């Protein structure tokens, strides 16, 4: 009977494994506790004064991209441009003329979270931020 369970160069293998695990997990423990805090988007004064958005705040937080997608399709395809929001108020479905009219600080409102979440929506390649245009 021969013993098959022997590891050759046991010491070397274990040291190697340890180094491997340390190297592979390096990014995790190196950045431990250094996570960037979630940004708090700044609500512009005009938006604060308006008190309400087209839909409730919680909905807008999670679903604004779906809402904007729906807006762009109905405006372009169906020529329907009026949106009756959750409070019964009518809005012109326009990113520049309605959203940015209240949320005047695109950099502080849109970009802050988008940068944090590392998403780069291409809205602004065509749609104008009135502030940047000036």
């Amino acid at each position, binding site marked *: 009977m021969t013993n098959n369970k022997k590891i050759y160069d046991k010491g070397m293998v274990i040291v190697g494994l340890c180094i491997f695990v340390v190297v592979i997990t390096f990014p995790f423990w190196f950045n431990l506790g250094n996570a960037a805090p979630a940004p708090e988007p700044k609500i512009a004064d005009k938006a604060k004064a308006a008190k309400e958005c*087209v*839909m409730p705040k919680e*909905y807008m937080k999670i*679903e604004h991209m779906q809402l904007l997608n*729906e807006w*762009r399709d*109905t405006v*372009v*395809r*169906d*020529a*329907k*441009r*009026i*949106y*009756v*929001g*959750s409070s019964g108020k009518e809005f*012109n*479905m326009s990113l*520049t*003329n309605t959203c940015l009219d209240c949320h005047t600080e695109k950099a502080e409102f849109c970009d802050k979270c988008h940068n944090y979440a590392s998403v780069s929506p*291409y809205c602004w*390649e*065509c*749609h*104008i931020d*009135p502030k940047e*245009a000036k």
Partner: protein
Amino acid sequence: MKSSRRKFLKIAGVSALGLGAKPVLDVLAASGEHETTSTPEIKKGKDALTAKRWAMVIDTRKIESEEDLKPMIEACHKIHNVPDLENKNHEIKWIWTEEFQHGFSTQEYEFADERVKHLPFLTLCNHCENAACVRVCPTKATFKREDGIVLMDFHRCIGCRFCMAACPYGSRSFNFRDPRPFIKETNPEFPTRSKGVVEKCNFCAERLAVGKMPACVEASNGVLTFGDLDDPESEVRKLLKTNYAIRRKPALGAGPSVFYII
């Protein structure tokens, strides 16, 4: 005790199924509620102008020179953020002028009268009844609206330029470069385009939606008339009834919606 074990397993199975179904039902119930609160109404503006088939009549008898047409071109290009590129290969145009010989290449030209021969003709997208550009577009970025306007959804344009090859009127331009630096005065109310999309006249769909006539018509001093081709009482139909008008390259069967009174 065999039978009781069997029973136990049966009961256990059914209860597990029941427990598993609960969260699923909860989710379904929640999504149902969700739907009802998040389907607000979407509608047309109350001032929106509507038609079965929008059309334009250009009275060329009222035009003498290029100068008469400039204000219309400028009005359009200004409000739609059309860039002014010097390189002719990169040129973007929604509305422009063409000589009779080129614009109406299928018409008799050699013995045409002097006025027509040298007159600048205002040309733009014809918003054809059977638009070739709509048929060839692989992404349906170009489509025909219910009111006859051939419109572009820039979000979906992939810049393949099939539509440019298909359009017999040269109405389409491609953005070879980022147009923004070449827009003299940006109109913040209308988007610009990005590099890599095709663009063209939209019959001022955004103005019709708020009850305004197209910008070129407004700036034309009565040279251009805009209306519903399907309505026998409309201004355009009245003009066409009493005047002889031609269209560009009619033999192609595209059915342009822009008419020229000669």
